[in-house]
């Protein structure tokens, strides 16, 4: 009997606590792509951290790289009556009907790190992404400065047709267009992977007289850059000196490579996509401030000078 009463009291207590928690806390659903890369894992970790700071109850769903799982997650978030949804879309198309359901239920949706293709932009509240064209432009400017505007460049492209590959290439070409002595002499796809970057770089080195004719390699992401560094080493050359290495993403291993003098710069793609989105959502909920349609995350250039310290700072995130 006594035990029963204690149980009942405890249950009531929990319910009361839950009640107050609900009143105070905002509930946000996060439909995440999965954990296909270290960057993605860092994005999820940062989202949890930001949610904790902003006292938001964040419900994360891991879609394991499948759109149907993300769609299911959004439906269930809507059914749970969340205050907002963060969506990191795995692909660009096919979101219209599920986003319409969310809009009908008056749940604001924020896109993280990727845009979507839709004829109706009112389907989502705002998109938080980096400016991938700017990233390419920044690293191009950096390379121009390093080489006094004179460089024969080989390029390791990302997956053919993917938007970061197209945009980073575009930005980089814009940057070097101002300098007639900077040219991309070879360009191939390394599929954003280490082994892809290494394999392509090996062949580039052979095709360019054992690497003597290459001044720098521009990789569309750090993983390919790291692969290229290994290929340069195996060809008996010094990465970072004989052949300069610049890339984009800012993953920890690239900071390590820069600290070792094997790479010359990376533009960080900030993993903090959820922070700006949550801030905009809280502003929208508390005083109805409409956020900007495209919230750009900052792109920052990092050089070997600060690499060691930056590596240490990032270690817990990745």
């Amino acid at each position, binding site marked *: 009997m006594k035990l029963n009463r204690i149980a009942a009291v405890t249950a009531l207590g929990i319910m009361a606590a839950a009640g107050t928690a609900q009143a105070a806390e905002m509930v946000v659903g996060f439909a995440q792509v999965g*954990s*296909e*890369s*270290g960057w*993605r*894992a860092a994005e999820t970790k940062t989202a949890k951290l930001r949610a904790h700071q902003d006292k938001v109850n964040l419900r994360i769903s891991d879609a*394991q790289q499948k759109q149907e799982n993300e769609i299911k997650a959004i439906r269930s978030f809507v059914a749970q009556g969340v205050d907002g949804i963060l969506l990191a879309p795995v692909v660009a198309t096919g979101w219209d009907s599920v986003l319409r359901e969310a809009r009908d239920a008056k749940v604001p949706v924020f896109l993280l790190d990727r845009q979507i293709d839709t004829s109706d932009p009112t389907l989502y509240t705002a998109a938080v992404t980096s400016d991938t064209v700017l990233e390419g432009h920044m690293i191009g400017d950096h390379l121009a400065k390093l080489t006094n505007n004179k460089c024969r460049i080989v390029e390791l*492209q990302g997956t*053919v047709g993917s938007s970061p590959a197209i945009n980073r290439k575009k930005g980089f070409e814009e940057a070097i267009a101002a300098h007639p002595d900077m040219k991309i002499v*070879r*360009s*191939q*796809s390394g*599929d954003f*992977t*280490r*082994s*892809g970057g*290494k*394999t*392509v770089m*090996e*062949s*580039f080195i*052979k*095709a360019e007289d*054992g690497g003597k004719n290459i001044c720098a390699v521009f990789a569309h992401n750090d*993983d390919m850059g*790291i*692969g290229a560094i*290994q290929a340069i080493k*195996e*060809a*008996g050359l010094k990465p970072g000196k004989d052949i300069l290495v610049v890339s984009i993403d800012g993953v920890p*291993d690239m900071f390590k490579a820069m600290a070792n003098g094997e790479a010359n710069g990376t533009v960080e793609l900030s993993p903090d996509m959820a922070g700006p989105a949550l801030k905009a959502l809280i502003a929208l909920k508390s005083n109805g401030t409409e956020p900007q349609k495209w919230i750009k995350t900052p792109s920052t250039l990092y050089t070997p000078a600060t690499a060691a310290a930056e590596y240490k700072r990032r270690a817990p995130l*990745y």
Partner: protein
Amino acid sequence: MSATSARLTRLTNIPGSAQLAALAAVLLGNWLVFPGFFNIRMVDGRLFGSVIDVLNRGAPVVLLSLGMTLVIATGGIDLSVGAVMAISGAVAATLINAGTPLVLVVAAALGAGLLCGLWNGILVALLRIQPIVATLILMVAGRGIAQLITAGEIVTFDDRGLIALGTGALLAIPVPILIAAGTFALTTLLVRGTALGLFIEAVGANERASAYAGVSARVVKIAAYVWSGLCAAIAGIIAAADIQGADANNAGLWLELDAILAVVVGGTSLLGGRFSLPLAVAGAIIIQAMNTGILLSGLKPEFNLIVKAVVVMAVLLLQSVRRRD
């Protein structure tokens, strides 16, 4: 039949002539797009040149195609080899970082491949699930297993011994080439030095007839899948050692298709039966020579797949002339 096609038929009647002709044509094409293709020199005590690249980069697909040949000869197929590569790489990387001695690391990675092969073999031979479906299970789940082992990250390592398996050289020859050659010799010895090869062909050609002749299809099939898993595990160790890290998402991605292609280019029928290991190796080298040639040519990446498809079609057409007659 016209005189030219009769001559072509006679020429292509010798087994392997189609593959060798294709290989020669691809190499010639590479030499035309890049005159330095056959140049070889020494760098840091190892051979350095595009031909060496072809062999070195081709080693994983050569390894996969050895196991795949045996599986296909039994009338099966193994779609899981790419995922098994990811698993063995992940096992090797995590264990070496935990301070395990290299011998045990390699043994564990090979053991993982062996278990994967055994799993496939049991599904196909004992539970009689169609091979394409049975191995599809591990193709999908295997990458997930690898991701679980690496916790979704690229696990990097700097153990010199393990790295040497992917990037080292012995007597100036890159280690992956030696490993692939050694595995080829061992596989050949296994299937041609014993009756196993004959049993595999018998089971692939007619399972019931071979059962009446006293050949246990179950044992033969399981052996083939286990060997395929083992070969994939070796390839996985090389792939991880090559980039000094286990990339669970990308290691061996789509390589099962290259391996199947190599076997088919090598003239082994997907319906099972007669098989040839040396020609499968030739098939793998043709594919890699083509990949390397595309990289050297300065072609835009948008054309990679089209060029590859055209060459593959040409090789297969060359073979079909022979088979039709």
